[in-house]
């Protein structure tokens, strides 16, 4: 055989058939095989010596990966995998103070995770530590993280079914034997998972895919959505991408749209920005960079069924130019109301410029009330959203009521919380009786903000685990919460402001009330600038 074929084989310039023929010749001919090996040795040596910065294994990239590992190990007390992912999972699961390496060392966890195989073990420890199948806990950190939005031919493995009748899922490991399921995360990201697969919901914007195939679709508001696998961490920067994890944890990433940041989950954790139309693999080689592979994004299932579309039961745009009537533009049985209620001239808001078109301006003590029909109940799923603008303020610790769904003291209250001690400058606070959930973002800055809360429904000590807050279309983590019991009953009334004092002093626009736990994407679309 001519030597040119050896060079063509080394350079990958042969077709599949030609490669098979040359390899067959190499198997038969010892001398030819030796010649090939001699050529291979020199070829790789020249590549290393002359290749310089070209390609994924350039000198600079190589140096970067070695130094990154040394820094990572120095930070992690010389244990051979990146700290970030697994500890973040543990922290998120428990909603406890951040773990420290010494804590993990005491538990014998870190030492056990020094190899990739044992990293699997740690992940199982993580999975087993919180099953997600037991009773609900009341803290917002332990609530429902995502909802089954659509499915096709779906077969859940035993004990992996959603715990909630509406398809909401808590944290924990789940398996699907076959079929497809699309999960809508509270952040707005969706993950279409193809069975067989094993996965774990880790937070409102993070999923661990142990095995299987996934397509993620991430709107800008959910940027930062993360998919972790046994061998790879993928963080979205606003895009659509696919991940495949095989039985050994080897993970392929294909970016169909936008940009994704990827890194190995252990060893050389140097991150790589992967752009549209490119693909990389993380296999059991933990020290080298992610390997480029052939792009196969077109093989991922992108869609099953249509997205859930919901419309509000009540929608006030306040765009009427004048008059006393406030018209409901939901297109359903109208729930109109009057700007000035009978005998309420002194406590009525005024028309003013809204965020778009018209809006209302409130002084403290003003209120606008709408009588609701009997279908609105306090313990049923519902979502309330609106735009609000509140001037910055200094002063005492207090709460400013923005809206009520139900009567005062017997219903839901949406408020701004001010506390100079903690620095809270108008954080969103949603309460029912003694129970409450408090966000962290300050609303009182003189700018328009879109606020929303979503209750998944149910009576009892469920407030913490079944409520989701959103600010400007983004899921709002709770900074504090207090246990409280949700009791059913007729809501009867929706109020903006509070007539007895302590109500909003500011502007309100685009009020929407849904008789369902509206999908995050619906909340986000009403929050679009």
């Amino acid at each position, binding site marked *: 055989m001519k030597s040119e074929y050896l*060079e063509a084989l080394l350079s990958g310039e042969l077709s599949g058939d030609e490669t098979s023929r040359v390899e067959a010749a190499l198997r038969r001919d010892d001398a030819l095989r030796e010649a090939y090996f001699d050529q291979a040795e020199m070829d790789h040596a020249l590549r290393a010596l002359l290749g310089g910065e070209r390609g994924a294994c350039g000198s600079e990239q190589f140096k970067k990966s070695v130094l990154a590992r040394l820094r990572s190990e120095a930070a992690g007390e010389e244990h051979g995998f990146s700290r970030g992912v697994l500890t973040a999972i543990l922290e998120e699961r428990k909603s406890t103070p951040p773990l420290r390496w010494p804590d993990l060392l005491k538990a014998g966890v870190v030492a056990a995770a020094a190899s990739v195989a044992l990293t699997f073990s740690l992940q199982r420890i993580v999975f087993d530590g919180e099953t997600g199948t037991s009773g609900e806990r009341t803290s917002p950190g332990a609530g429902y993280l995502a909802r089954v939005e659509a499915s096709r031919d779906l077969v859940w493995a035993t004990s992996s079914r959603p715990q909630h009748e509406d398809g909401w899922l808590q944290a924990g490991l789940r398996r699907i034997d076959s079929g497809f399921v699309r999960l809508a995360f509270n952040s707005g990201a969706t993950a279409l998972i193809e069975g067989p697969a094993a996965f774990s919901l880790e937070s409102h914007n993070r999923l661990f895919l142990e095995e299987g195939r996934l397509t993620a679709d991430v709107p800008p508001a959910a940027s930062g959505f993360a998919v972790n696998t046994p061998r790879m961490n993928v963080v979205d920067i606003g895009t659509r991408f696919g991940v495949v994890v095989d039985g050994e944890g080897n993970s392929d990433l294909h970016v169909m749209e936008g940009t994704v940041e990827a890194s190995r989950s252990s060893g050389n954790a140097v991150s790589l920005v992967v752009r549209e139309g490119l693909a990389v693999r993380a296999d059991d080689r933990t020290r080298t960079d992610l390997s480029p592979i052939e792009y196969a994004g077109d093989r991922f299932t992108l869609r099953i069924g249509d997205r859930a579309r919901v419309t509000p039961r009540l929608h006030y745009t306040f765009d009427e130019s004048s008059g006393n009537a406030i018209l409901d533009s939901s297109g359903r049985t109208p729930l109109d109301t009057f700007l000035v209620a009978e005998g309420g001239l002194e406590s009525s808001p005024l028309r003013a410029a809204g965020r778009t078109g018209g809006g209302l301006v409130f002084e403290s003590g003003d209120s606008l009330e709408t009588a609701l029909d009997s279908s609105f109940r306090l313990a049923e799923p519902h979502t309330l959203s609106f735009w609000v603008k509140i001037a910055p303020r200094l002063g005492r610790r207090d709460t400013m009521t923005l809206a009520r769904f139900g009567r005062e003291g017997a219903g839901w209250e949406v408020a701004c919380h001010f506390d100079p001690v903690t620095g809270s400058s108008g954080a969103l606070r949603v309460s029912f009786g003694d129970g409450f959930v408090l966000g962290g973002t300050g609303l009182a800055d003189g700018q328009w903000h879109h606020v929303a809360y979503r209750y998944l429904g149910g009576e009892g000590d469920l407030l913490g685990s079944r409520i989701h807050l959103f600010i400007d279309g983004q899921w709002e983590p709770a900074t504090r919460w207090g246990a409280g019991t949700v009791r059913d009953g007729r809501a009867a009334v929706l109020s903006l402001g509070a007539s007895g004092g302590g109500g909003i002093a500011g502007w309100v626009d685009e009020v929407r009330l849904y008789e369902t736990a509206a999908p995050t994407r619906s909340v986000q679309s009403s929050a679009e600038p």
Partner: protein
Amino acid sequence: MADDETRLVKRVQAGDLEAFGDLLDRHSSHLRAFVAMKLPVPHLIDEVAHETFVFAHRHIDDFEAGSDFGKWLRAIAFNLARKETLRHQRAAKNAEKYLDHCLIERAGSGGLSPDSPVAVYLEECLEQLPDRQRELLAHKYKLAESSREISEAFNQSEAWVRTTLCRIRSSLRSCIEAKMRDESFSGLA
């Protein structure tokens, strides 16, 4: 040069990671070339070289500043490559990739010694090549051009490019082996 390197090693021993970066700059391509000749399987070359530098950093206090750092690195890489070969022999499933399997098997029985600065020899041998051959290698390895692109640049056929590359590599190999023989003779003397 040697003094510079000694200073760098001492800085690393004092905990300066940036100094280790400078050592990486100096030695990484030579070390990877050495590993390539010992264990010419693409995905293992960087793997072993990477692990060699990490091992060297962890054991830098064991290294005597002033002695040959490149030789020390080669010795580490030599042992790691041997370990990789043994590990591979235990993992029978790797035999599915026949050529890689044979290359690793061969590495286990190869005669390359860590005492031989083969990358330095390779550089010297490259210097001895005619200009046109060096230019051909630059197109192949520095510019990463395909045989077709090189054939167009040299106004030759693709077959000529491939055959010539094989001949150049064979001559480089002979040159290195000659230098290794000279080295062993001078050692005996």
